């Protein structure tokens, strides 16, 4: 079961494990060169498809790796490949997240190709894709990282690319404002994380997650305050990245200013990758200081950190939901819904493990996958309706049922999923997280989850109300561009399928993830 390959150097053979990331970077370079070399008057339309091909190719390599590591015939595979002095891990957890992140990116590109092409405020269409691909590469690094330095590099690669992407609508003041806000807040977030890391490194003498985990116990005796401070700063920095309240104030403005595909990317890929890195970092360090590993009552550090995370999750759920109640702009509303969802996704990380509850990764991954589909689908509708109405206000959805009945029907599925109502992936995602929290006897957290979900009915159903109960100013039908329509239907179908048959996905995740190999990085 526990087969580990430790590769210290980097031979050509080992480099094959980096193919997904390399593909993306290579494709980014190719697109840049093409964009530069092509005469200005030629259309850049195909560049979008080219970048989509790059993402799909990268996805293909990840799937290939996954099959190699978990042979379908049931023979023993490899559990984990450790690369580059144990700073980069290719394991099942990373692969699951990479598949999700790449699928999400592919869907976002598919959804955005038309809207980017038609957006006059984006002057250099090629640049969108040139920046998108390195951002995804950064996200993949975050999913695989096992070292503070790699983590930071991945995070910055993702962040800096998205700073520019947020401001890509150069002729729009809103977009520039969004980019500016994002840079400032993102910079603060990076500074927080870096500052926290410096303490952790100073105390433990290593940047490796496993090393930190091993050194933390002894170090706690002498430097407790510094370790607390270091982790608080890291968690705070990540809270900004994932837009968890009270560190969320940038999200509505940035989401509103950025073009829809970029917004979707921020809401799904950027948030998911940062959460994934946080999960791995905390599970390999903080978790080892909890009762499951050290016995009852030896140190308060682990429980305290988990409590901080629980508080963060609770405040994200409460603030995100209540702030969304009065929101009439759909992009801002989805930003706030994303804040609440960051809270839901933090719950499986925050509740910790006991011998009787170790399914945190499945709960996290299942809800994240459901979140990917329901959010991207909603953004697909947003991009089309927003364009037809000329704004993203709620009243633009009035009478959508008459103007595009099938789109409205698909949107209902997505909204039900966002609200956590059956039959949808969002329902089971939340249910599994809930059962996990209740199984850990964190009843108050479970209660907050349920109550905020119910409050969220109000604003999700206000969209439904506009679509079905009101009539709009114009009765003209809205034509869905093929690629956006395809994205919408893939997302709606996946959401519905996860709601009817959550079993295969849940079991699959549980089958291939192995806790000792994937999480507990022991030296």
């Amino acid at each position, binding site marked *: 079961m526990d087969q580990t390959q430790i590769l210290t150097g980097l031979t050509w053979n080992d480099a094959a494990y980096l193919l997904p990331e390399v593909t993306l970077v290579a494709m980014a370079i190719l697109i840049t060169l093409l964009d530069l070399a092509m005469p200005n008057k030629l259309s850049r339309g195909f560049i979008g498809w080219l970048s989509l091909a790059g993402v799909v190719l990268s996805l293909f390599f990840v799937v290939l790796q996954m099959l190699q590591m978990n042979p379908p015939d049931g023979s023993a595979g490899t559990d984990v490949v450790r690369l580059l002095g144990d700073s980069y891990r290719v394991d099942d957890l990373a692969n699951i997240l990479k598949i999700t992140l790449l699928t999400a990116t592919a869907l976002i590109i598919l959804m955005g190709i038309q809207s980017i092409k038609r957006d006059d405020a984006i002057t250099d269409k090629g640049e969108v894709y040139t920046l998108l691909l390195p951002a995804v590469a950064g996200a993949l690094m975050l999913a695989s990282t096992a070292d503070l330095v790699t983590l930071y590099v991945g995070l910055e690669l993702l962040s800096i690319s998205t700073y520019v992407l947020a401001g890509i609508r150069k002729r729009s003041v809103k977009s520039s404002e969004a980019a500016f806000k994002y840079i400032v807040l993102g910079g603060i977030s990076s500074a927080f994380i870096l500052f926290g890391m410096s303490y952790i490194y100073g105390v433990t003498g290593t940047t490796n997650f496993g090393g930190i985990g091993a050194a933390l116990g002894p170090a706690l005796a002498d430097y407790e305050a510094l370790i607390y401070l270091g982790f608080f700063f890291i968690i705070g920095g990540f809270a900004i990245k994932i837009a968890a309240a009270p560190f969320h104030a940038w999200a509505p403005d940035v989401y509103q200013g950025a073009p829809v595909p970029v917004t979707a990317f921020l809401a799904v890929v950027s948030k998911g990758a940062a959460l994934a890195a946080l999960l791995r970092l905390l599970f390999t360090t903080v978790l080892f200081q909890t009762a*499951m590993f050290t016995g009852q009552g030896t140190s308060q550090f682990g429980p305290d950190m988990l409590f901080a995370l629980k508080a963060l999750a609770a405040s994200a759920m409460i603030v995100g939901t209540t702030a969304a109640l009065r929101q009439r702009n759909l992009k801002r509303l989805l930003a706030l819904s994303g804040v609440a969802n960051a809270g839901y996704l933090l719950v499986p990380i925050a509740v910790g*493990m*006991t*011998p*009787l*509850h*170790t*399914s945190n*990764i*499945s709960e996290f991954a299942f809800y994240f996958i459901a979140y990917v589909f329901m959010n991207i689908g909603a953004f697909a509708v947003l991009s089309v309706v927003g364009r037809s109405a000329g704004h993203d206000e709620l009243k633009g959805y009035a009478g959508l049922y008459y103007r595009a009945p099938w789109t409205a029907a698909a949107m209902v599925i997505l909204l*039900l999923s966002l609200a956590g*109502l*059956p*039959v949808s992936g969002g329902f*089971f995602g939340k*249910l*599994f997280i*809930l*059962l996990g929290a*209740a*199984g850990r*006897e964190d*009843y108050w957290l*479970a*209660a907050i989850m*349920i*109550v905020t*979900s*119910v409050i969220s*009915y*109000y604003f999700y*159903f206000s969209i*439904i*109300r506009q679509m*079905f*109960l009101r009539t709009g100013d114009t009765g003209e039908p809205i034509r869905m561009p093929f690629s956006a329509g395809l994205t919408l239907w893939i997302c709606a179908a996946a959401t519905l399928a996860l709601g009817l048959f*959550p*079993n295969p996905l*849940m*079991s699959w995740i*549980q*089958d291939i*993830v*192995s*806790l*000792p190999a994937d999480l507990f990085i022991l030296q």
Partner: protein
Amino acid sequence: MPEQIPWLTVLTFSPLVGILVLLFLPKANSRALRTAAILTTLVPLVVSLWLFAQYDPSAQAGGIFVEQTPWITAALNSEALNGVASYVYEFQYYLAADGLSLPLIVLAALVATMAAFASVHINKRWKAFYIWFLLLETGMLGVFMARDLVLFFLFFELTLISLFFLIGIWGLFNREKAANTFLIYNGLGSAIMLIAFVLLIVTAGFQSVPDGEAMRLVYSGNYETIMANLADPAAYVNIPDAQANGSNPFFMSEGMRWLVFILIFVAFAIKLPVLPFHTWMLRVHAEAPPSVVMIHSGVLLKMGAYGLLRFGVFLFPQQADDAAYVIALLGVANILYGAITAFVQNEFKLVLAYSSISHMGIVLLGIASLNQIGLQGAVFQLVSHGLISALLFLIVGSLYERTGTTDLRELGGLARALPFMSGVLLTAGMASLGLPGLSGFVGEFLAFLGLFDSMKGVTAIAAVGVILTAVYVLRSVLKITFGPMSERYAALNDARLIEAVPMIALLAFILLLGVYPSILTDSMQHGFDRLFEQLNSRVGG
């Protein structure tokens, strides 16, 4: 009929097949859509009647129809545990129909068919209407059969979503507000229910099953498992921390049991509705289209009482026993408040809405009695009130279609213009006030009789409500049918055939239950046996 056909599944999901048919019909052809919808609702009706006839109450457990198959078996990580073969969440597709469920299933199927007839008054977006309508039917049939907590929740929410659309799109002037109020109240109700269910699954739902050498640990949503575990002193849920090496995460303390019981009670009290939670239901009664109110008042309110019995009283008999007095008092409050307020209403629909509150109070009394007669009375009252209120709202719909108002001050003397409908209205009114020979009497009588055993004083006060019922029913019904008639009503036409058919059918069932009540009470003969066993063992031990 051959045995291998999964009849319960057919019963539950045949409306979905109807939806598929509807999708292919032209959306402007209201007649074809209606016919298809009516024909679709006949399938569950026929199947449920057949099952009811087949049901053998004397066979105890053997007579129950069951369909059970694994649905979600989500593996949890067992790596951290030694000697464990697997560690899973297990939620089943588990439908069952026993003596408690069957009458309500028949009621739901019957009212749905009648409401499909009554939907002749719907005047826009027919296709969408019947799609939501049939989804609602699947939801409510499923609620009465589901025996897995997650599955139950799924069906329960299905009724919530479809009813939101039915009220919001096809309701009267204030429909949006009504739909919103409905959504918020019931959303809150199902949230509370979900908290209770989650608590049950992670404590009482836990069991370890030997699997060869190792153990198989299961968090189950199975209703029977949870019920058995709660009653079994050797189950994990009943072993305190002190006896289990210091900690047992599955133990349910006395306080926790009370918490879950109260959560379940409140969740379903909102649906029923019990007194402080009733405002949403008035709005729905006033604003929803009459055919939807037929279902709402006739079936959906009954889901509250059903849930209260199935998940509150059956799972926590001791808590129910201790709380019986409070439940009875709430019942009395419902009866009197509903009756008195109904008396001063000028809007006929609100009279009926308050009358529903009053009648649901009687159900609470029956539940509070916790004996065979009282519980039978409660269920009988559910079915009977379902039929009567469906009939009354059917008439309301037809009246409104003709007169454009249901305000008592503007109606009068309609017996001359609409003799048939007025006759039906009078009979329904008589049934509602509990005239012997009609179904309303039996339910009330049994419930009072049951409660008289344990709480004589409360029963006496509650009985006053019966008199009040007679007063407000007669006041409003007579106001509509007799007295001077406004000139503008002279030219009204009496009920058309498509309206008369459901009226006669519902009336026939009301009469049947009134003169031959044992057709229903027999089916419940052993429905409460397990409950009494537990209650008796408590008294004995």
